[in-house]
């Protein structure tokens, strides 16, 4: 039996299926650019659902309340930071466009505001974030107003404890209590948020749960649940449960594997092909090369080899977990094109001695260099190819975990990379 190579062509190939990759596909689709997206499952499923822009400044112990003002500081103190290279108006536009798209596709989000939102974490601590899913929005409001509220958790559910949330918040939120209930028809053993969320897509399960929630809420009018309010239609599931119980309900993210991330991934995988994107999920590009006419990507899906010719490419392959960067004995590499990686002088300089060192670790700022058009640079400062752009946390000079800026970097740089790719496509088609 002969295995035939399947040949595909596209205007833009997006490599990577994290937030940056999906954001790039979304921005491109909305600009009528033909897109093919390839990428391993990625770490999208690990997100809390909160979309951070900038939650923490280097050297300051306090959380960032006004991220737009903090961006000005960033531009002054870290001019090489990817977010420092993007006008604030573009960052705002990128968030507005991205969240509007999510909303149109069934996962409503709050619009980016002038200030961060104080949101709840799975551990019952607080964090600053820019955009919150509609299913979680009532949590920050209830906290701000210190309303009587019951956090409800479930027998057999690991990774979320109402007692922990309440214990950590009690000093600041005296009206917060907790109750534990059994999830309908899942009476024994370990249960997963994903399974609960899917079960809540079924009306009969919602009705059974609503009865239990009403009892557990007691006198409170607001209840917080782990993020399990449906997988495919969360806003509908939340609205239905609120209608059935007469309560205001909000979700709190859980530890991975958590529902908000799986929700986003499944929505992207569902919606993007419907909008014309050639999505090749769960595969990695094995070779990428450029000639004068186009880029060629080689990959294999379970059925066999695929060869993709693309006029432009956005590299959004992430960092070490997703394989965008590789750490070896002699240093850090970018494995697909062997792009130069800005990195500490030697392995000895990767980490500080103390894990919790407030300065952070140098390895986290390693990454690839780009020019103002988001084109990866060779040693010497020339672009690798006029057809190649990069987005997301593969970029150097940022430490997204410490900065609470993962989604911000992903969304805003994807916006700029698509903008640059679009400029290239229109100039090459008019020439």
């Amino acid at each position, binding site marked *: 039996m002969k295995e035939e190579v399947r040949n595909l062509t596209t205007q833009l190939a997006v490599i990577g299926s994290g937030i940056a990759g999906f954001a790039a596909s979304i921005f491109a689709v909305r600009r009528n650019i033909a897109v093919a997206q390839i990428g391993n499952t990625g770490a999208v499923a690990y997100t809390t659902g909160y979309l951070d822009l900038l939650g923490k400044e280097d050297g300051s112990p306090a959380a960032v309340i006004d991220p737009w003002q903090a961006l000005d500081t960033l531009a002054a103190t870290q001019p090489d930071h990817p977010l420092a290279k993007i006008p604030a108006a573009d960052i705002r536009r990128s968030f507005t466009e991205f969240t509007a798209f999510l909303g149109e596709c069934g996962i409503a989000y709050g619009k980016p505001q002038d200030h961060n939102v104080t949101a709840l974490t799975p551990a019952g601590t607080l964090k600053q974030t820019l955009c919150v899913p509609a299913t979680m929005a009532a949590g920050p409001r209830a906290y701000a107003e210190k309303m009587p509220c019951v956090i409800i958790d479930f027998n057999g559910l690991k990774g979320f404890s109402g007692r922990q949330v309440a214990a950590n918040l009690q000093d600041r939120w005296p009206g917060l209590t907790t109750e534990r209930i059994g999830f309908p028809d899942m009476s024994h053993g370990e249960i*997963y948020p994903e399974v609960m969320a899917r079960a809540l897509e079924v009306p009969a399960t919602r009705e059974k749960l609503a009865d239990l929630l009403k009892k557990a809420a007691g006198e409170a009018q607001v209840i917080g649940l782990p993020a399990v309010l449906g997988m495919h239609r969360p806003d509908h599931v939340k609205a239905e449960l609120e209608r059935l119980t007469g309560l205001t309900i909000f979700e709190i993210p859980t530890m991975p594997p958590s529902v908000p991330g799986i929700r986003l991934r499944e929505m992207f995988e569902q919606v993007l092909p419907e909008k014309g994107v050639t999505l090749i999920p769960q595969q990695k590009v094995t070779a990428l090369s450029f000639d004068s006419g186009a880029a060629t990507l080689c990959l294999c899906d379970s059925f066999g080899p695929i060869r993709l010719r693309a006029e432009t490419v956005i590299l959004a392959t992430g960092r070490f977990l997703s394989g965008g960067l590789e750490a070896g004995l002699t240093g850090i590499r970018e494995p697909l094109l062997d792009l130069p990686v800005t990195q500490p002088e030697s392995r000895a300089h990767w980490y500080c001695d103390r894990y919790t060192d407030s300065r952070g670790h140098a390895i986290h700022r390693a990454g690839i260099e780009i020019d103002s058009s988001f084109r990866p640079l060779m040693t010497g400062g020339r672009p690798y190819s006029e057809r190649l752009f990069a987005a997301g946390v593969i970029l150097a000079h940022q430490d997204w975990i410490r900065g609470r800026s993962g989604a911000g970097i992903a969304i805003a740089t994807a916006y700029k990379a698509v903008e640059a790719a679009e400029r290239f496509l229109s100039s090459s088609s008019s020439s």
Partner: protein
Amino acid sequence: MADSTIPTINFKEKAMELLPEGASFEACLTCGLCSSGCPASGIENMDPRKFIRMAMLGMDAELSQTPWVWCCTQCKRCQHVCPMNIDISQLVFLARGNWPQDKKPSGIVRSCQMIRSTDSTSAMGLPPADFVFVVEDVLQEVRETQPAFRHLQAPMDKTGAFFFVNQNSREPMSEPDEMVPLWKIFDLVGADWTYSSKGWAAENFCMFSGDEEAWYEVIRKRVDAVSELGCKVWLNTECGHSYYTMWHGLKRFGLAADFALESLITYYARWIREGKLPVNSRWNTRKIKFTVQDPCMIVRKAYGESIALDMRFVVKSLVGEENFIDMQPNRSANYCCGGGGGFLQAGMTDHRRTYGKRKFDQIAATGAAYVLTPCHNCHSQMEDIGHFYGGSYGVVHFWTLICLSLGILGENERTYLGPDLLALID
């Protein structure tokens, strides 16, 4: 016979041997996406993550003996959602093969023995002569009772035919009239096809029993049968694992085959696009809602997105775009129904239904009245869990709905239609 014991496998060593570097057990982040997304999680107190952790801890005796390996359908969804792309199903296959024959679920073992007992390769043991008789007998009846099809053909052992068509044994054995819609479709599109008296059957439970030698032998017999007739395409009809066992088997065993393997779904889509199958949805005046079940064996594990999209194109053409509701998740991310991997034959009914609850919820969430699926195991399992959990949906073959849409569905060919669909015919 004295009870045999299950030998102990060194799973960690085998994982290093079988799985590629970077996607082996040492790459596991223990994040649990596999277990969270696996309908077999919790059954026999096991799940995919636990399986890997126990292997890493050297708990080989426990893993070698856990009956969970017969509840995992090897659907590969765990690998699909794993950021590190770790293939746990390979280890489950290894564990299954390691069980002595007398300890394995007897239903699976027996089905494999039946397949090897005749040249038909039929899991129900239907010999070639009986298959030829049933086909001729049913054909005769159709010609006599359905005037529009008095010249209908069901060629047998026709040398040089383009399509070598396989058939799940359930049809000739238990519901022979279900073969007729397929013959009518071939007739309508003018397909050059044939059945073969040898190697015609679709099933291959030998793979599910973990018996590589038997799996190979069955594939070999089928390849020889196709080659003997000189057909260009081995056309897999509405059965999931038959495609995978053949397609994957050819690669796994390095077998040369001078013909292509294709799925009937691909051809349904092609014939509709070419206008050869002029189906439409005008018959669906009551706007009856349909969903579709992606069989793991042809979607996630083989063709991927292309066949899933073809399947949706066919369904939408048949029932109307507005009457199609996709299950969530779907396509390559779809859940196994729990009928695969030999689970239906393994005699572990409670476990199988626990597994199937996820599928039941998925179907219930669509609110669809019918599920279409091109797979017999999916078909049987979804019917069973529907009854068990009190669902009100029906399960139908593609060929039934195609002929219904074309107005050529004979009276004996309506077994799977509910009153709502029957009312639209009369």
